């Protein structure tokens, strides 16, 4: 019998280890259903402690005033807004993976999208802390919300980029959260159905919103996912664009730059992917999910990192070129003296940024390096350090020496409470992440089954068998009676 089938060898399986559907469910539900490990407890407790220090730092700042930080009359923003932009940037990868890659039908995303989305949500939560608590009078923070009030004709200022931030970030957070939760529903139903204890049944039962897995549910679920993906896609681009407007629309030399929107978005994706790498390299190891989050995933994401890193690099060089080529003496000074000049007070921070963001990712041009887990982990950390410095360079080195030399600042460095606030957001982030990894499946259970090639593999195996059978054998075996 002639072989009438053609098998493409282009794509290797996205899930390794020849899993069947049940096995997948078992593997992914195991960490959720088993007792937390010792490592989990240690990690969780450390995170909570760090979070508590963050809460202390913020409490002290709120009680005693922003003077607990070392900001001054010239440098009005420092670590606070640097951290804000940094976290917001990190919060970009999740939505990119879930929304844009969904629209582009990138099957590999299913291995990492759940964790990446969770990371997005937690990162946005962390980011949101900074613009709130950096306010001098945070108890009046609700003034930024445009609601009808009894204060006469008082209204928010729609001209202010900070107000745009309020809308951009709250929208982004809402949509991301919905998207993430919509994706979780079938998985929560699975956990509910598998639950043996009463509280688990109750918890997952409530959380699953009565998902029964009917076709109608699936149909609506798919439609909702697509709609949310469609909504999120422009948000990926718009949120960081709007954050960049905080700077781009100002008059401060070094901030007032039209290149900022694309540059910020690329940087955000860059740092977001780096953070996904940091988390997944650890998660897959700790939860034993190497077969779901494969080395292929790591490699693909490293490719995105080298791409976005290079975009960011080009943006840096463009900025530098324009400041030299352009005619603005003040912008020239901001770039050439405040940044490029290594011997200026903050020159070192510019070169850390350049080293981490532009030079170091170039190593990922090599396949071997892209598939090296230790290097990937190290690089992901390095990149996020670099991206933190990018925001620091933009914010601090622009304002500390701007138009009037008389106002040039004294050296700004953070106090323990500024650092503590930043640490605290790490605590918040990892506390959330540990809770998430304990109570929710870190891999999209329902979605990853779509990419399982189990049916095809079964078919292939069976076909091999059948091909070697004679007609009689076939008829006998399979009990087909062809009218004999």
């Amino acid at each position, binding site marked *: 019998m002639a072989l009438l089938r053609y098998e493409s060898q282009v794509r290797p399986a996205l899930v390794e280890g020849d899993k069947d559907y049940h096995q997948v469910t078992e593997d992914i539900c195991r960490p959720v259903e088993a007792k937390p490990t010792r490592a989990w407890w240690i990690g969780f407790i450390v995170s909570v402690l760090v979070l508590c220090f963050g809460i202390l730092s913020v409490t002290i700042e709120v009680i005693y*005033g*922003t003077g607990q930080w070392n900001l001054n009359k010239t440098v009005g923003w420092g670590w606070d807004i640097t951290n804000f932009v940094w976290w917001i940037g990190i919060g970009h990868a999740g939505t990119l993976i879930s929304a844009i890659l969904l629209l582009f039908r990138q099957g590999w995303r299913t291995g990492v999208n759940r964790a990446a989305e969770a990371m997005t949500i937690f990162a946005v939560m962390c980011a949101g802390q900074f613009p709130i608590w950096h306010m001098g*009078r945070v108890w009046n923070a609700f003034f930024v919300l445009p609601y009808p009030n009894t204060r006469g004709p*008082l*209204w928010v200022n729609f001209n202010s980029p900070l107000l745009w931030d309020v809308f951009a970030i709250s929208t982004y957070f809402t949509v991301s959260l919905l998207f993430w939760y919509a994706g979780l529903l079938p998985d929560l139903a699975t956990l509910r159905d598998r639950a043996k204890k009463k509280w688990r049944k109750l918890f997952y039962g409530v959380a699953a919103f009565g998902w029964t897995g009917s076709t109608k549910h699936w149909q609506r679920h798919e439609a909702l996912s697509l709609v949310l993906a469609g909504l999120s896609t422009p948000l990926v681009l718009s949120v960081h664009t709007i954050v960049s407007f905080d700077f781009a629309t100002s008059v401060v030399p070094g901030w007032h730059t039209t290149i900022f929107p694309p540059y910020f978005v690329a940087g955000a994706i860059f740092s977001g992917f780096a953070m996904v790498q940091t988390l997944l390299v650890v998660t897959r190891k700790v939860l034993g999910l190497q077969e779901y989050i494969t080395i292929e995933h790591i490699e693909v994401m490293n490719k995105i990192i080298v791409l976005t890193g290079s975009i960011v690099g080009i943006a840096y060089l463009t900025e530098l070129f324009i400041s030299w080529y352009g005619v603005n003496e003040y912008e020239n000074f901001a770039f050439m003296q405040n940044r490029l000049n290594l011997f200026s007070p903050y020159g070192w921070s510019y070169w850390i940024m350049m080293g981490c963001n532009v030079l170091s990712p170039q190593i990922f041009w090599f396949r071997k390096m892209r598939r090296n887990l230790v290097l990937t982990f190290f690089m992901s950390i390095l990149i996020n350090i670099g991206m933190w410095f990018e925001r620091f360079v933009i914010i601090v080195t622009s*304002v500390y020496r701007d138009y009037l*030399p*008389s106002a040039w600042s004294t050296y700004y460095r953070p106090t323990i*409470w500024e650092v503590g606030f930043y640490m605290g957001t790490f605590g918040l982030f990892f506390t959330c992440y540990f809770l998430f990894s304990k109570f929710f499946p870190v891999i999209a259970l329902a979605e990853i089954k779509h990419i399982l090639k189990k049916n095809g593999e079964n078919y292939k195996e069976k076909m091999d068998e059948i091909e070697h059978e004679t007609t009689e054998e076939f008829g006998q075996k399979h009990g087909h009676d062809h009218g004999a």
Partner: protein
Amino acid sequence: MDNKYWQSFGEVNDPENFRKQSQDEFHEELPFEGFDDKGLIDAKAPRRDFLKYLGFSTAAATLAASCKVPVRKAIPYANKPENIIPGEAKYYATTYVQDGDVVPVLAKVRDARPIKLEENVLPGSSYAMGGTSARAQASVLDLYDMYRLRHPQHKVNGKFEEVPSFEQMDKMVGDAMKAASGSVVLLTSTVVSPTTKDIIAKFPNLKHVQYDAVSHSGMLLANEACGFGRTLPSYKFDIAKVIVSLGADFLGTWLSPVEFAKAYAKGRKIEEKNPQMSKHYQFESHLSMTGSNADERFTHRPSETGLVALDLLSALGVGFFPTTSIGKAIKKVADELNAHKGEALVVCGSNDKNIQVIVNAINNAIGAFGKTIDFSVPVNYRQGIDSDMAQLIADMEAGSVGTLLIYGANPAYTWPEADKFKSALKKVKVTVSFNEKMDETTSLCEYSIPNHHYLESWGDASPKAGITCFIQPTIYPLFKTRSYQTSLLRWSGSNQDYETYFKEYWIGKFGGTDAFNKVLEAGVKEETASGGGGSYNGAAVAEASSAIAAYPKVTGSELVLYQKVSIGTGSQAGNPWLQELPDPVTKATWDNYAMISMAKAKELGIKLDNDYEYYPEKPVIELSFGKTKVELPVLVIPGMNAETIAVALGYGRNEGMGKTAAGVGINAYPFASYNGSSVMYRVTGVTATNLHKKYRLAQTQKHNSYENRKEVVRETTLASFKKESNVIPEWRKELEDAFYKNSNGSFRANATLYPDADTRSHEIKWGMSIDMNTCTGCNACVVACHAENNVPVVGKREVLRYHDMHWLRIDRYFVSDEHNPDDLKAVVFQPMLCQHCDNAPCENVCPVAATNHSAEGFNQMTYNRCIGTRYCANNCPYKVRRFNWADYTGADSFPDNQDNQLIGKLDDVVFQMNDDLTRMVLNPDVTVRSRGVIEKCSFCVQRTQAAKLEAKKENRMLGGNDVKTACQTACPTNAIVFGNSHDKESDIYKVRENNKQRGFYVLEQLHVLPNITYLAKVRNTDEEDKHWGGHHEGGEVKETMPAATKPEETTH
């Protein structure tokens, strides 16, 4: 038949039900459905009712818990005094007198509290011409100083104890004086009060010694030697075409700086049609504020002052053989002086009689006497003779002084050999101090009978012949204090108190109560000066010049002691506003330090790198001379004589001066020396060693150069200005042309989407103009702004963190030779405050619209609305917005959070400023800002509002000059002009129209449309300024946009 009026069918057809319904339209009680008396659970809809209850009770509980009503301590008048309307300010003419400085002022009294001092301008007066000094402005805070002595005290067993009444005190002192043998001596600082002198003269057997902390006795003696008597002359800086100062800081601290600055500014104002200004040469050793304003400055060793004077004298004649290294400069100055005979004057800050004799000879040679220097109107600013003081100490030591009464003098602190004074004081049987604070001398006395603050007391001052200034009380004495004159009267056997004496004296003099009251109202009375005079006699010159020539030649470092405009001799050192006032030259607050030259820094191994500039930690050196050794931080200043080290006096006070002054800086008086005839404020042969330690010095400005940013500062030389007078207008036109190239419409209108205030010419548009040519950097405006706008004092710790709150600051830029930064060409002072931009970058970035634009051109700040994002401060190109980093004012929502022991611990001074007593100085018209909000210059909006109300009451239009800002009235040189720029009669309109060639806006190219015009600084030199214009270098094409010019291109 009655008519029935009805509105609806319901009302006609079912009147009962309708009435019920209309009554129930607004339920007065919470509409609990079927609740009756059945209890919540049994109600018809318990869930809803529960929620209603919950909502109501939560809201009520929240309201009850959160709205803690503060206790207000306001008591209305039981009987309203006539003429007093609560909330309306009254102004009383009085006079600030301190150490011989006499400044006529108006005290603004709100609800019986003096809260601000204003200039007193009397039309036609030669003395009350307006303007104040930083110290005069700050003196209102001294009234509320919590460290003032509050009652008479007597020392028992080495400790002061309160004496319950003045009668008891008088008896105690009287008995003691009777028992003590020896003479009775009254030691005071210069007394300018005619009545006091009268009282002293009447006191039997009272010897009066006047002693000035920083003395001018050399000058007094020199004038005596030259035949003018022991007096000081009037100086006429306004008519002098050439002014030469040999180390006299006449704009800052020398004799009568407010008066001199006023006169000086007259000669410095430029009229554009015929640009002319006086020429100011300064010879000095360190960079003083006056030196900073000089057109040409030459430095020399402090020990060479005499030689410079001698050289100048000889250069005025023929055949000049210079003895100093700056002979060429001296020759030039001498030629200039010769060319302006009769319209030039030379002043000298030295306390050396010989040098002052030579200076008199110079002034005689240039015909200054009778023209620019007038001995026919002698002045009384300083009368102390150092040798009298030395003699007094010798007498005390010898035991011949039985009673020493001290007022206004503090020799235990200021006398060069203070220890000698202290030990001599022990030998005096009865020692009484009338000083207002427990200063170094008072703490050593036996009796302390504190004097009133001048704002609480009657008094008078005669700064110069023919001029009488009145002091009148503006508040009932806060404490149990008494005029020292009353004490003197009582002890001399009179039953009068000073007030009665004073009134009787002047009523008698003026011939009636009406005349007296008239003077009291005006504050100053002017009569034609009588007497004075004498004619020049050069007999002493030969002796003086040979004495000077014999002065030993000095090598090595020399120390010069100077006064700061803020602290002066130190008598007001306990004043928080003055301590926080940045020095005009160094921009340092809260300390004194050693000013050294760049050469000296190099010699000491001090590196002037980034760390030096950007960190507050400054290198510490040790200065030693004989037994006196001090450690001082260093500030390297250009334009210093290479070997000169300058240290300010007035620091290093004891606890009794209050926590503000105690422990701030070091006392430099021990470096002064008494040479047998006068006190010398310089030390030769001082050793400086680098201790390789660091000390944190709080400066409010770090960078010293304006980096040739023309958009920020425009300054040039008179020669260049005359040659090319339209550089600025052309440059501004280029800016507009560049704008039109890319867009159409008007430069102004296109800047912003909002309607342009400039087009509404029938309305008010406030504007300001600041003349950088007449701004001397004296800082009076900064303190005035503090007082007017309740600007908080933050203390050294916070200034170190760059958290100073000044709404108005004076930016100081050094202009040096390109190749030699030590060669100082000029110092530019640029008062910087909110520019009230019409297209303000701060306004559109505030998310909550807390800062916005008024129709009158104010960029206004709504503190209540501010949530403190600081975005506006970041986006302000002028960096004039100030953030309340901590609870500086006690106005915070969180109670008691000033006691912060963590980061940003607040200094004692913040607590002092928040003391109930000190807070009496607050201006009730201006909100005290709470922690977490931004604040900034408001263009004194409370004053514009008050003026509008005034105009409304008088039913007239508001005049363009009706409002004067606090900084404007404080300014002794009228550098600041404010008003309605739409009013063509207003000064601001005229200033802008008449100064088109110098007027520019800072950073105009940013298109923020600022509302403050700056008039470029012009130095009167013949030097050509190659940065001016930019058309000099062959065929170089100018960039189209001023902003466009790169530093390399503009600097060459």
